[in-house]
C-alpha cells in the first residue's frame, strides 16, 4: 500500500470515528434527556400520527425563543404567568420528586383519561369508546425547562 492510499484510509477512519462518536454522543444525550412523544390514533376520518421529539430539541427551541422573542412580548408573557409562578415551580419540583403513580384517572362509559408519572415521564392517556386514543409523554425535565422559560 502506497502513502496516498494509507493517507486516504487514515482520513476515512478519522471521519468514520468522528461521525460514529458524534452519533453515539447524540444518542446518549437524547436517551439521557428523554423524548417527548405525541401519538394520536384517530380511527377513521380523524388524522393519526406519531410525533417523537427529543427533549434536547425542546430545550434548544426554548433557548432560541428566549433569544429571538421580542423583549416586550417576552415580558408580557412572563407578566401573564407571574401570578402562577410559585405554583408552577412547586408542581414542577413536586413532579420531579414524586414516585411513579397514576395521579388522576377518570373513566366514563364513553372515555377514559389518565394522568400519571411513569419512569421520569409525565403521561396523559385518553381512550375514547370508538377506539380513538391519544398518548402524550413528556419527560419531567422538559416541564421544568418550560416552567423555567415561562417564569424566569
Amino acid at each position, binding site marked *: 500500500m502506497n502513502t496516498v492510499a494509507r493517507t486516504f484510509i487514515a482520513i476515512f477512519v478519522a471521519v468514520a470515528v468522528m461521525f460514529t462518536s458524534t452519533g453515539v454522543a447524540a444518542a446518549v444525550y437524547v436517551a439521557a434527556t428523554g423524548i417527548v412523544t405525541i401519538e394520536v390514533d384517530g380511527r377513521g376520518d380523524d388524522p393519526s400520527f406519531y410525533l417523537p421529539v427529543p427533549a434536547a430539541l425542546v430545550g434548544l427551541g426554548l433557548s432560541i425563543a428566549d433569544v429571538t422573542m421580542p423583549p416586550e412580548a417576552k415580558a408580557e408573557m412572563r407578566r401573564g404567568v407571574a401570578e402562577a409562578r*410559585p*405554583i408552577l415551580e*412547586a*408542581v414542577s*419540583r*413536586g413532579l420531579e*420528586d*414524586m*414516585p*411513579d*403513580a*397514576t*395521579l*388522576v*384517572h*377518570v*373513566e*366514563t*362509559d*364513553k372515555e377514559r383519561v389518565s394522568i400519571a408519572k411513569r419512569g421520569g415521564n409525565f403521561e396523559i392517556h385518553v381512550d375514547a369508546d370508538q377506539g380513538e386514543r391519544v398518548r402524550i409523554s413528556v419527560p419531567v425535565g422538559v416541564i421544568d425547562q418550560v416552567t423555567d422559560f415561562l417564569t424566569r
Partner: protein
Amino acid sequence: MNTTSLKKNLTAALLGLALTAAPAFAANDLWFHVKVREKGGDNANVTLNIPVSFLQSLMPMVTKQAELEGGRIAIEDKDVSTEDLRRVLTALKDSPDATFAEVETDNEKVIFYKQGNYLRAETTEGQGGAEVNARFPIAVLDALLSGNGNELNLEAALNALVDHGPGELVTIRDGETSVRVWIDHNAEMTER
C-alpha cells in the same frame, strides 16, 4: 480483595445508596386519595392519588390565598370566625367522649360527636338519601386553628395529618354516587 470483603462492600454501598435515595420521598410516603363513583348517567369514576408531600409543597401558596380571604369560613351565608371555632375546639378537646349535637327531622338526622381523638360528623337523609360520615383527627383541627388571629394554618394542619398517619377522612353515599377520601401508604388506590 476476597469475595467476602467484596460482598460486604457491595452490601454497604447498596445500603448507602438506598439510605441516600430514600429521603427524597421517605417522610412523604403518605398518599391522599379521593375516589368518586357514580352509577347512572355516564357511570363516571374519578380517582385522585396525590402524594401528601406534594400537597405540603403547595401549602405555602394555598395558605397565602387563605390569608387573603381573612381565614373566615362561610357556613350557609353566616361567617364563623376562626376565633369562634378555636373556642369550640378547646372545649371539645378537654371534654370526654360525648355527642354534642343531634338534630333529627322527618327526613334527616345529623350527629356531631367526639370519639377518642376524633371529631365525627354523621348525617343520614331519608330513604336513598345522602349518608355522610366524616372523621377528623382533633390534632389536625387544632393545628388548622393554630394560626394568628383569623388565619387558618393549613400548612400545620397538613403536617398534623402526616403525623396522624393513614386513615379514613370522609365517606359520602348519596344514592347513586359515592365519595371516599382517605390517606394511606399506597401510591395506587386499592379497591374497596
